[in-house]
């Protein structure tokens, strides 16, 4: 076994700090991030602890004078973090793969050396876990994608992509909750409401929930 790496901690100006965990992009690591987030959100001076994909952003109520204490607390917190298992609910999402919205389906297939049908069946096979919310209101980052359909993000982000886009960015996948700019590749479309500011909790899904994509149709 190789020695586990150490976390990376970097500044986002004076308003936030980013903690990046070492190791794989998988559920056990993400569960430790959830545990660390739950602990860090109670620390003094911290406004919010926001899980990303095997990383954690802390925003400051007031920026700390000295960062050493916070950095030590994060490192210790990570070492001590037992995986927090969140028992979420399971959502089934029918997807129209390809078509106007999912216009990158063919280019993902070409990039990965697979057929369109392969990309669709590989994408729809796993039970995905919501790892984190981010990007835009109600958007869920999903863990569990098969690495065979990995495709790097766009060279230049699109100014506008459709709401409900099912997209791939690097080794991640997700569904956009509303139209907006995106650096990812859309391979399909779903209609489902992920976000409503009038709900008691404005996002429909939370970390720990699971999603299964159902192939409604494949448009070539």
């Amino acid at each position, binding site marked *: 076994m190789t020695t586990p790496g150490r976390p*990376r901690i*970097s*500044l*986002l*100006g*004076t*308003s*936030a700090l*980013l903690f*990046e965990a070492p190791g794989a*992009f998988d559920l056990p690591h993400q569960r430790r991030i959830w545990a660390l987030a739950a602990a860090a959100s109670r620390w003094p001076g911290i*406004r*919010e*602890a*926001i*899980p*990303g*994909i*095997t*990383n*954690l*952003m802390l*925003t400051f109520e007031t*920026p700390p*004078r000295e*960062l050493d204490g916070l950095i030590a607390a994060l490192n210790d917190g990570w070492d001590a973090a037992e995986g927090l298992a969140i028992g979420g609910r399971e959502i089934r999402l029918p997807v129209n793969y390809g078509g106007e919205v999912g216009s990158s389906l063919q280019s993902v297939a070409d990039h990965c050396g697979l057929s369109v049908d392969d990309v669709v069946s590989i994408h729809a096979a796993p039970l995905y876990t919501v790892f*984190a*919310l*981010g*990007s*835009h*209101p*109600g*958007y869920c*980052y999903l863990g569990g994608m098969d690495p065979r359909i990995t495709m*790097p*993000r*766009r*060279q*230049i*982000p699109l*100014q506008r992509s459709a709401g409900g886009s099912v997209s791939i*960015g*690097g080794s*991640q996948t997700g569904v956009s*909750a*509303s*139209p*907006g*700019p995106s*650096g990812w590749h859309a391979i399909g479309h779903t209609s489902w409401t992920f*976000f409503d*500011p009038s709900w008691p*909790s*404005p*996002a429909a899904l939370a970390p720990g929930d699971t999603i299964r994509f159902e192939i409604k149709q494949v448009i070539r």
Partner: protein
Amino acid sequence: MIEILSVTGPASVQDLGRFDQYRFGIGTAGAMDDVALRAGNILLGNDENAAGIEIPMVPFRLRFDRDMAFALTGAGVEAEIDGRVIPPWWRSHARAGDLLDIKAMPRGARLYLTVGGGIDVPMVLGSRSTQFRGEFGGLHGRPLQPGDILPCTASAATIGELGVEPAEITLARPNTAADETIVRVVIAGEYDGFDAATQALFWSSSWKITPQSNRYGYRLQGPAVKPRVPIEKRSHGIVPGVIQIPPNGQPIIQMRDAQTSGGYPKIATVIRADLWRVGQARLGSKLRFEQTAYAEALAAEAEMSAYIERLRTIVRLIEEIRTCRSS
């Protein structure tokens, strides 16, 4: 109430922003020039977080439906109320039926109209700021249109005219060329992924602000700045001010409507004390980055807070003197 008569470009209702909803994927939104919004609110005796109208393009016209105090801060504009010229960073009094006509914007990029008591749109998730993506906050979560009626909590009490020195003068940075904005940045996570020559290029270049720059982000144009090897990050939280380098090597500064997370490498972050300068930098003008340490960035913030505190004190003293004289 205020009635919008004509709008050019995406004007919107903004307060200082929505700061504690990141975990739902909700960014800050809020005024691109928070200093100007605060100053307008201070001139009017409002809560500094009261909502105003952010106006990025002119002409812009509106009518006041009742007597109320208002202030114009931020960009330098040619503006008239009922035919009278309004000086910059000035508080005036409108009468019912008066027309406010913003004709030109010779300096800066965003004007703030604040009214006594603030624009009274509903508070959504802790803020009145317009959140375009997701369409909530502000007025129906969208840019203002002709015919829109904005409710105001304004009192009809007449208050005297009053002005303060614009922040761009008081907080001017030394050695700034005309048409160039220098902003201080703290280096970010992937800075070391760029070799020394590329880092030097990032600091020495004068970056052009392209027309694809808006409340989401400022897309810059200059020499390609690329990391030694391509960097594809796992998605992580980002904040306004973060400078990402997409694979084409052209920096993007995340602004108030930016996504709350991203995966492009980050070379640096514009410090909070200078982000308003980016918000006032015009399309087609140049930006230059100056490296600063975390402690210096905190000192710059303290300086900014002191400036705001000074404004508050000056306005209060003038009000007190006027009250003494009139009583």
